[in-house]
């Protein structure tokens, strides 16, 4: 029986590894872990901005016309810009950079057992372009006319014609920022896919790749395949804005619905682009903390690919009232209902993984369980929207808004906290405070439901999205509609819950601060007795990640294996030979 000798391949394109100054080390680094932290910190800073925007426009909805503490009176144009950029930021500058770029960068080389990405310099360029895109977006809020207010979906002619949107500069900067961000993720995605395929540790077969890595890889493939048409659309939109072309202008023979197709052809796969990484983190966490193998690993993998393919066939469910042929609407109804099947399957798989496990309810596990519960609500309400009949009523109401917040919040916020709390010891070498972690968890998840459950009801009652103030609409100001509350009371309730939720985020930052100040590194390489390769590396991993590049002998989810139980342990790391 021959065994592998681990070879230390010198990757000559990895740059020089000496200790360099702050600039070289933190801003010009090609190390995947440093780039991960750059993405993480930038993404979290953008989350603070996006959260502040939500606070301001929610205050306006609860107390229309009154000065918002910390902002002042909100004008209608400002309201539109805040809503538009809240959505844009949360999807493109928080969910994408944190879930895919930060965790993808940190985890992929560690989990497949290599020392860095295959293209480290492209990786560095990716972050630099991303940072530039964030700066362009932020600067768009301060130009003449203010930030773009035509919704994150940027439908023309509103987005294309400055006489309509009144933000000639803001609108263009917005599109440019989004386009730059896409370039950044293209470069990142090339690295993720290539590294996971070509740099795996000896012995690691395709079915030994941890789910978190697979999910990020599939998400990257989906992104790369879906973003092309939107890049084309973005170029056309910029031309319409700046060169006076008429690609989307009916007066010049163009077609505004064309943009909707280009946008949603990307837009729907994009929801799976952000969903999959979060699903991957949850898979790692629930197996580790229920000490059970992932139920039906291969089926999950095939399902993920199947979902990815299906996700290219449902986009027009966003356009049921855009004048599409009702027969087309039927087809897209069917594909949309179909795609909820694999998503539901994935939820059942996770529940089956938990079944009869010996469960540890620590902070990462709480986040993972919350993900499953909350996302279920989002997925189930999607089915109502996917049926073209009910959607004619629901479209652009708060029901849609509540639906996608019950999907995006679990993905972007709960999913990020899943990953952060679970891999924090690996990133820093220090354990976080569990009590603070749990306070933060409950202080986030309970208010989240208090914000968005009333919004389902408001949507049912016909409340439209993207409206500055409901005071002028008598039928949207009715009293005593739900649990004794009037419609305005429910708006106030949702806003108050948001303020509470934002306040509880302070607990998280306190926890981070306390942990970072701790002197001793108390985590050790493998604090959870987990199996995958990142737990072999020291915490935090040094340059080159592993003292000796590992060899893989089995899959990542061999928990509670009978052979090992006989020897007195319930885990079997991928890197251990016997």
């Amino acid at each position, binding site marked *: 029986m021959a065994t592998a000798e681990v070879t230390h391949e010198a990757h000559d394109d990895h740059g020089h590894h000496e200790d360099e100054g702050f600039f070289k080390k933190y801003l010009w680094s090609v190390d995947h872990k440093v780039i991960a932290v750059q993405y993480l910190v930038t993404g979290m800073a953008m989350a603070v901005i996006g959260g502040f925007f939500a606070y301001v426009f929610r205050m306006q909805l609860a107390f229309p016309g009154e000065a918002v503490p910390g902002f002042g009176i909100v004008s209608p144009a400002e309201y539109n810009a805040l809503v538009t950029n809240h959505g844009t930021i949360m999807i493109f500058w928080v969910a994408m950079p944190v879930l895919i770029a930060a965790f993808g960068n940190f985890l992929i080389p560690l989990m497949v057992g290599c020392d860095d990405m295959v293209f480290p310099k492209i990786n560095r360029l990716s972050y630099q372009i991303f940072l530039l895109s964030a700066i362009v977006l932020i600067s768009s809020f301060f130009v003449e006319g203010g930030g773009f207010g035509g919704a994150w979906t940027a439908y023309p002619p509103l987005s294309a014609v400055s006489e309509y949107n009144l933000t000639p500069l803001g609108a263009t900067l917005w599109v440019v920022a989004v386009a730059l961000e896409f370039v950044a993720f293209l470069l990142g995605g*090339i690295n993720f896919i290539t590294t996971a395929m070509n740099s795996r540790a*000896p012995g690691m077969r395709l079915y030994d790749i941890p789910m978190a890595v697979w999910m990020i890889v599939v998400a990257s493939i989906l992104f790369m395949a879906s973003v092309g048409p939107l*890049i084309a659309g973005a170029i056309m939109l910029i031309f319409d804005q700046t060169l*006076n072309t*008429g690609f989307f202008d009916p007066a010049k023979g163009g077609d505004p619905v*064309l943009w909707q197709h*280009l946008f949603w052809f990307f837009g729907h796969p994009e929801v799976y682009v952000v969903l999959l990484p979060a699903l991957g983190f949850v898979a790692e966490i629930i197996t580790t903390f229920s000490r059970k193998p992932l139920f039906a*690993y291969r089926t999950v993998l095939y399902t993920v690919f199947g979902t990815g393919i299906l996700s290219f066939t449902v986009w027009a469910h966003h356009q049921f009232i855009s004048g599409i042929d009702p027969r087309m609407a039927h087809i897209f109804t069917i594909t949309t209902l179909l795609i909820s099947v694999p998503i539901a399957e994935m939820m059942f798989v996770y529940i089956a993984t938990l079944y009869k496990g010996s469960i540890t309810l620590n902070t990462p596990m709480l986040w993972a369980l919350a993900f499953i519960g909350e996302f279920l609500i989002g997925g189930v309400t999607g089915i109502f929207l996917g049926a073209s009949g009910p959607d004619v009523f629901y479209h652009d109401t708060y029901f849609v808004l509540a639906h996608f917040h019950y999907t995006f919040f679990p993905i972007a916020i709960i999913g990020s906290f899943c990953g952060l709390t679970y891999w924090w010891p690996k990133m820093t070498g220090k354990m976080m405070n569990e009590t603070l972690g749990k306070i933060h968890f409950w202080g986030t998840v309970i208010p989240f439901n208090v914000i968005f459950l009333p919004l389902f009801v408001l949507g049912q009652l016909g409340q439209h999205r993207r409206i500055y103030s409901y005071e002028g609409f008598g039928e949207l100001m009715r009293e005593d509609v739900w649990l004794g509350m009037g419609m305005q009371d429910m708006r106030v309730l949702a806003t108050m819950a948001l303020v509470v939720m934002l306040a509880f985020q302070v607990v998280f930052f306190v926890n981070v601060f306390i942990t970072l100040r701790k002197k001793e590194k108390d985590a050790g390489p493998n604090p959870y007795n987990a199996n995958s390769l990142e737990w072999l590396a020291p915490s935090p991993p040094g340059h080159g990640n592993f003292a000796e590049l590992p060899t893989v002998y089995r899959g990542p989810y*061999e928990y509670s*294996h009978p052979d090992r139980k006989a020897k007195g342990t319930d885990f079997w790391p991928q890197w251990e030979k016997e």
Partner: protein
Amino acid sequence: MSPPRSTADLRVIDDPRPLPAVPSAVLGTLVFILTEIMMFAGMISAFQITRASAVLGWPPPGQPRLPADETLINTIALLLSGVALFWAGRRFERDRREARAPLLLAFALGAFFVVFQGVEWVALLRDGLSMTSSQHGAFFYLIVGTHGIHVIGALCVMAMVVQRHQQGRLASSTFQAMRVFWYFVVGVWPLLYTLVYL
């Protein structure tokens, strides 16, 4: 009570770091090309939809016709450039030094394509076809221009390859990745030519 399908069976690992089936540079390029294909697909479908719904016919009355015949020459030049590069690749694998002539030929034909197109654009602009003159003009410059930028970008990479080759430090995988990208740029052109010019 063993799990239904175990990945725990003992395995024999005799190849420490097997060479990847597709070199990383090539794989990365292929992934990038996937996005490129989808981008051109987006542009082409937008073009087809707009063209199909043009009430005044296509190309619109009063707008200059595209020089389809001259461009056929240019198309052939670009295709020949792809052939020359393929030839360069074959020679490179046999004896690295021999690749120089076909490599330079590929570059020259590619550069010819760009210059030819530049001349053509100047004439068309003079005849009154611009991005704002009609949807016809807008899509022409959008699609053909996007492709032209790709050709120019790929030529820059090719110039780098030529230089490295001369200095004797051209990595085989870099050359291969460059070739794959050039085949894409060349391969997509006949499709664009047929759809836009004919």
